[in-house]
């Protein structure tokens, strides 16, 4: 399918099929799967934060199986070098015995890349990864090589082991489309996980889409119309996250926020809203779509101050209060 042939119904059907296939392997975590899929369909990259063993790697791998795309996993360690990610030129000897440089592609040359524990690598290595995410290309020895399309990076962070890590700087965090929290499964989900993963049969996902379909879905999602007053609402939400704004700033932002979200946050909200609308069998973005997309789009883009940290106020709480205070209908 391409962008001219894919329909909205195809979009919904394909997305539903992907979710179903992933659901065969991943127990529960519906919001995680949905938001990850939205990030993929929006052409962005996702940052997952959760304790080890919750299926983050399994999710990306299963997703890659469902969309029949190449998958690679990069385990970030403190000694990881940029060349370990992007690749490097190696000297090889041909049959004639002549030595020449041959580019050996790194694991980043895949469609779906899992950057596991990205905060463990050095800033230099992180920046190489993040630059590739941003540019969708890799430059090695003055040669620029484009990355595969579609290209989707799912980075993870472990909130438990922060000692000896290199937390991503705010400017780098801003490059992630969504930040998705991975909750601990419920008891029922744990039972199901046990049943699925400790038995003889290991569930597998069947491919229901391919790279071109994903690209077509990405293009179609961008075509969903959004009314002016809805866009204005997103802009008001974004402005409300800045503590140095005019008198319309909510008190919670004035008190706990050091820096507000960038315009990338607004782009993420709108694109996420468009995809949510299509998945909801609608052809326009609604206020509810905006509210649903606001949390994953903004939680890593708000920088809280020391008072918030001292009082244990989270970005989710601040975003929730901002959503309550900013009125949607302001035409």
């Amino acid at each position: 399918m391409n962008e001219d042939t894919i329909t909205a119904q195809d979009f919904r059907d394909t997305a539903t099929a992907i979710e179903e296939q992933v659901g065969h392997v991943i127990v529960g975590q519906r919001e995680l799967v949905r938001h990850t899929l939205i990030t993929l369909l929006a052409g962005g990259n996702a940052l997952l934060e959760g304790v080890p063993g919750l299926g983050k790697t399994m999710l990306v791998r299963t997703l890659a199986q469902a969309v029949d795309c190449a998958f690679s996993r990069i385990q970030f360690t403190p000694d990881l070098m940029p060349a370990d990610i992007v690749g490097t030129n190696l000297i090889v000897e041909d049959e004639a015995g002549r030595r020449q440089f041959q580019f050996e592609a790194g694991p980043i040359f895949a469609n779906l890349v899992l950057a596991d524990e990205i905060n463990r690598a050095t800033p230099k290595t992180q920046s190489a990864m993040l630059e590739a995410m941003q540019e969708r290309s890799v430059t090695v020895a003055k040669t620029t090589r484009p990355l595969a399309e579609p290209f989707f990076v799912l980075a993870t962070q472990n909130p438990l082991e922060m000692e000896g890590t290199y937390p991503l700087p705010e400017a780098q965090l801003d490059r992630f489309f969504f930040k998705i929290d991975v909750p601990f499964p419920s008891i029922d989900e744990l039972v199901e996980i046990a049943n699925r993963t400790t038995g003889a049969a290991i569930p597998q996902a069947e491919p229901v889409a391919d790279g071109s379909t994903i690209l077509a879905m990405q293009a179609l999602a961008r075509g969903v119309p959004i009314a002016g007053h809805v866009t204005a609402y997103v802009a008001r939400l974004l402005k409300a996250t800045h503590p140095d704004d005019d008198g319309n700033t909510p008190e919670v932002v004035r008190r706990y926020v050091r820096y507000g979200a960038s315009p990338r946050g607004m782009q993420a909200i709108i694109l996420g809203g468009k995809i949510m609308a299509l998945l909801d069998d609608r052809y326009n973005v609604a206020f509810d779509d905006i509210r649903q997309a606001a949390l994953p789009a903004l939680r890593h883009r708000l920088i809280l101050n020391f008072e918030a940290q001292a009082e244990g106020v989270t970005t989710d709480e601040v975003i929730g209060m901002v959503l309550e205070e900013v009125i949607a209908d302001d035409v």
Partner: protein
Amino acid sequence: MDELANELELHLARFGRRLRLRDGWLLGLRTLWIACLAGVLIQIAGRIQPLERPWLWTLVPLVAWALIVLGISLFSSLPLMRVALRVDAELGLKERLATALTLGDWKGGGLEGRKASSMIPIFQSSNLPAFQSSLITLQREDALTSVRAIDPRQAFPLRWLPRPLGLAAILAGMTIALALLPNPMDAVLAERAAVAQALEEQAEQTEKLREEIENAQKLTPEGREELLRQLAELAQQLRANPGDREEALADLSKMEQALRQELDANSDARQAALEGLAAQLQALAGEETGETTDLSDAAEALEELTQQLAEMDAAERNSLARSLAGAAARAAQAGDTSLAQALAELAQGIQSGDSEAAAHAAQAMSETLAQAERELADQAAIRRVLAELQDGRQAIAQAGQSQALAQSQGQTQSQGQGLGQSQSPGQGQGQSPGGGQPGGGGGTQADTLPPGSSTGRADRPQGAGLPGSVGELDQQVYVPWERRQASGDELFIPGQETGQGETEVRDQTDPLPGTPGQALVPYYEVYHEYLDTANQTIERSYVPSGLRDYVREYFSRLEP
């Protein structure tokens, strides 16, 4: 305008009408209690202050409420975009309609003339990919599909709001109960209406009196003008009065006082003297006198006498002169100095035999008589006006009092002593012809009034049967005598002949019968002062309303 946009606008217009109706309905339900509360307050106000037709005023806030609600329902502005947003929000359409309306604007039709700045344009170019155009079309069709399935009446029902309606019902019940319960102000309003009626009648009566005086022939120009002015002023005051009894009585009393100041206490005596003079002149002229003597007859008799002078001998002239001198003395005694002087000059002219002087004096005498006649006519007119004013005051004082008096009599039967008797001390004079008898009949039937001391004012008439020595008024009052139709008894006052100067023999008829005693004041001269003091006390002190009416009735019966 394309068909989709057209159809969407039609649907939105339908929803707009329904939303406007529902907004007005809810506004009406939420605010009905305010109109009912206003009704309750008006009813309460109608019980505290006399209010004409309180039930009509109670309807005013209801009518105003209905007009406002109707106006908002019919004429409040509700743009299509606002309708779309409200329908989306209330029916959970997820901004389908608002987005479709905006996309219709992009289509280049359907929203011409509307403020483009009110909507942020989505697309700047019509060169869109096919899939995007199809999405737009799908969105608009999706919106229309949603809206076609919605019935505005079912989607936006006119709900009842129990709490505000319950409150309005309670307040409406209170309003009706207050309207149905007996209102003490009804009696006040009835009394006020009766007083207003009496005032109108009195104003008409005053106008008629004014016409009579205007047409009267014998009044002096100054007297006529003054009376007309005062009557016109009084009529104006009465007509401007909305029904205030006290104010009307005060206006009447004020005019009465002004007129009484112009009243000549000697006018009756003067009238009698002039009539006596006229009769005497007629007798001297040899004319027959009727039962009543007109002063114009005196002028004719005088003229006749003047003509007869030439035929009189000295003895006749002297006799005539003596008669005229006696008349002059009586005129002087009656206070008519100008007439006395004219008579004396005529007597002197006749006695001296100077025909020319006598004729001149006779002419002056005629003019004096004419002037005296006009002045007496003025006094009669004043008395006539006073009588009318007194009648009017009584009518106004009694207007609307019958019911209140019946109540007050029931309250006051067991109270008080004969205070009213003190008002008529019984030491009057001349109540009956022959005079000298105690009058005592000026009292009222107010035997059941409480003693004056109960009102706490030292200057009140006090006690029972005491003479009218009251506070600042140390004179004794009496009931004035009535003007006697015939002349009084003849008196003989012995004189002493000294042989010097002129000798005069006067025949005097004393027009003032009565017994000699202390200076006496006609009660009508102090009546108003008593009345004013009583009215002030009634207003300042706590006196039951029934007793107030009783006091007013008492004084109205005492009116001269």
